[in-house]
């Protein structure tokens, strides 16, 4: 057959596939069954034409056209899976806590963060060991501002103002958490950011817990108690997930660096999403409960203990592995 005749014979089908694929757009699942069936048939036919292009001796321009046509139809046929909510329960309440419980990177970050936090807190609290430590970290001006801002409690804020602050804390804190996660890909700057934040926070806490801070000290303790557990855990989770990705391409464990990165990134996304959820929970508490001055301190303490218990249940009870890796499969 002449090539010109062949193209003339086949192009109506190609054109039909092209039209159908434009008409359906991204919504193949919502198109009429007959159209979908026709689409699939035409797609297979176009695939066959492309496969045989060489023996048909089609000119490159036509082959190029077929590449585009098949590529486009391929993307419509094999499209992204939308989120499936059924599998989400398992993912949220079983897979993710187990992942976090077993994750060595989160443990490393926990040790680094809390270690630096406590050391900086002690150095800042006890002025004899390293005089001027808190001034060196936060700056004398910063300390004055801090003391000033906590010297009087804002009084009872209304629900409206609480909602506003909640929005602000979600925006601000979750953004910082996600930025920390992303920066951890480059391991060293990530560690610098993490350590700086831990030392800074530690210095602030140590300074505010000092007795010479007066009323500000009491107000500060009253303010930070309730939302502390969720927020600090969220920071650690975000940084730990980041460290996991960051070290995956440094120590690739026998895989090609790129593949190791891909594999780990997929695993660490649930952890960082868990961190985002914790930031949101912390912001709700920080917006509505923490600023209440007439809310008794033991009440805020109860909130903190309650949220810690929730975290324990999530990470330890749900996260405890059904069988230790390499251990007995079923002991009892």
């Amino acid at each position, binding site marked *: 057959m002449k*090539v010109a005749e062949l193209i003339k014979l086949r192009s109506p089908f190609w054109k039909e596939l092209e039209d159908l694929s434009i008409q359906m757009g991204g919504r193949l699942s919502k198109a009429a069954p007959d159209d979908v069936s026709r689409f699939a048939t035409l797609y297979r036919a176009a695939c066959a034409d492309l496969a045989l292009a060489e023996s048909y001796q089609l000119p490159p*321009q036509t082959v190029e056209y077929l590449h585009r046509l098949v590529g486009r139809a391929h*993307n419509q046929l094999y499209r992204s899976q939308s989120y499936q909510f059924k599998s989400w329960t398992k993912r949220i309440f079983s897979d993710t806590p187990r992942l976090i419980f077993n994750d060595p990177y989160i443990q490393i970050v926990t040790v680094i963060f809390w270690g630096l936090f406590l050391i900086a807190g002690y150095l800042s609290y006890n002025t004899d060991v390293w005089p001027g430590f808190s001034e060196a970290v936060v700056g004398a001006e910063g300390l004055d501002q801090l003391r000033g801002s906590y010297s009087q409690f804002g009084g009872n804020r209304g629900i409206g103002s609480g909602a506003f602050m909640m929005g602000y804390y979600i925006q601000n804190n979750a953004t910082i958490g996600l930025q920390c996660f992303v920066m951890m890909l480059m391991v060293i700057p990530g560690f610098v950011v993490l350590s700086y934040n831990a030392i800074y926070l530690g210095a602030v806490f140590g300074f505010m817990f000092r007795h010479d801070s007066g009323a500000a000290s009491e107000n500060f303790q009253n303010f930070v108690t309730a939302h502390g557990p969720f927020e600090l855990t969220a920071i650690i989770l975000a940084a730990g997930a980041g460290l996991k990705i960051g070290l995956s391409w440094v120590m690739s464990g026998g895989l090609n660096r790129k593949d190791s990165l891909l594999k780990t990134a997929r695993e660490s996304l649930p952890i960082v999403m868990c961190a985002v959820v914790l930031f949101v929970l912390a912001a709700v508490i920080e*917006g509505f409960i923490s600023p209440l001055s007439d809310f008794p301190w033991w009440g805020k303490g109860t909130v903190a203990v309650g949220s810690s218990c929730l975290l324990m249940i999530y990470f330890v009870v749900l996260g405890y592995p059904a069988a230790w890796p390499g251990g007995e499969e079923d002991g009892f």
Partner: protein
Amino acid sequence: MSSDRTFSAAETDSMVRGIGGLNSPQANDQKAGIDTMMQVKTPENISFQYEISGPFYRFVAYLADLIFAFGGYFAVVALFYFLLVFSFIFIGNAVGNIPPFFELLAGLAFGLVMVGFFLVYWFYGAYMETRFNGQTLGKRLCGIRVISVDGHAIDGVQATLRNFFRFLDIMPIVPLQMLLGLESQVLFAIPTFLIGLVVMSLNRKFQRVGDLVAGTVVIFEEKKYRPDLIEFEDERVPKLAELIPADFVASRGLTQVVAEFAEQRTNLVPQRSADIAKHVAVPLMDRFGIAANTDPDLFMCSLYHRLFVTQEGDEPQVGSEKQLVELSLPAPVENRIEQ
């Protein structure tokens, strides 16, 4: 050179190779390297190519997205803001004082604005790319799409990851007053996109950091391609084509080269296209006994006409012509799954 000398298939192929190695075994790989093409193999076992999009198209798409996402978001916010303010004034006038309920409403509204900003900043791209199969509004405008490196459509995890890691790609963020050398207190942070640009230029698929982490590539989706053959208006073309001996069989490589030439010649000045054509045309004209002063470019066009329009092709290898047409024709839909 005598006119009755016959060319073996190998000789025509060697002539062909002289032009640019188009027919050499590695030609396809080389082409993929030069033209930023990406090979994808479908489950139907067909391999086809995508053209990978470079940084500048993607930058335009990103700017468009910023305008759409934040412009759209602020438009909605402004609308509600005015509604709130007007109802404030209206009810305030009617009742005489502003009821405390409005303080709650205003606080709630501003809280929501911040949460919305957070969601748009971090999740706009992820949502759009998951929902619309790898395209945001800006990408649709620029005709590009995100796909997985293995050619499949991307999933939600990939879309989320590649958009999170954009924060690293826009680094380093430089304050504007530092660039201008001003001593101003107002801070305008300008993202320089340097990390993204450097990482993109270091790999073949123009993947930025987010793409490497998520395993995705950005490709050009469609340009107008036409399946038709090239038609020459010059009436000398078919006439010259008739002078080519009826028993001449072109090798596959020669056919390929003639077609490539015919498609590219409109991009060349006539002198240059004749220069290129003569390497293949002169020996063939000599062999066919066509006058040596014929324009080689014209001869190549005639050869194209002969090979694709008037020549009976080889019987395709799979089977008879009829079978082939049936094979590629849509099959009757009988055994469709009942819905």
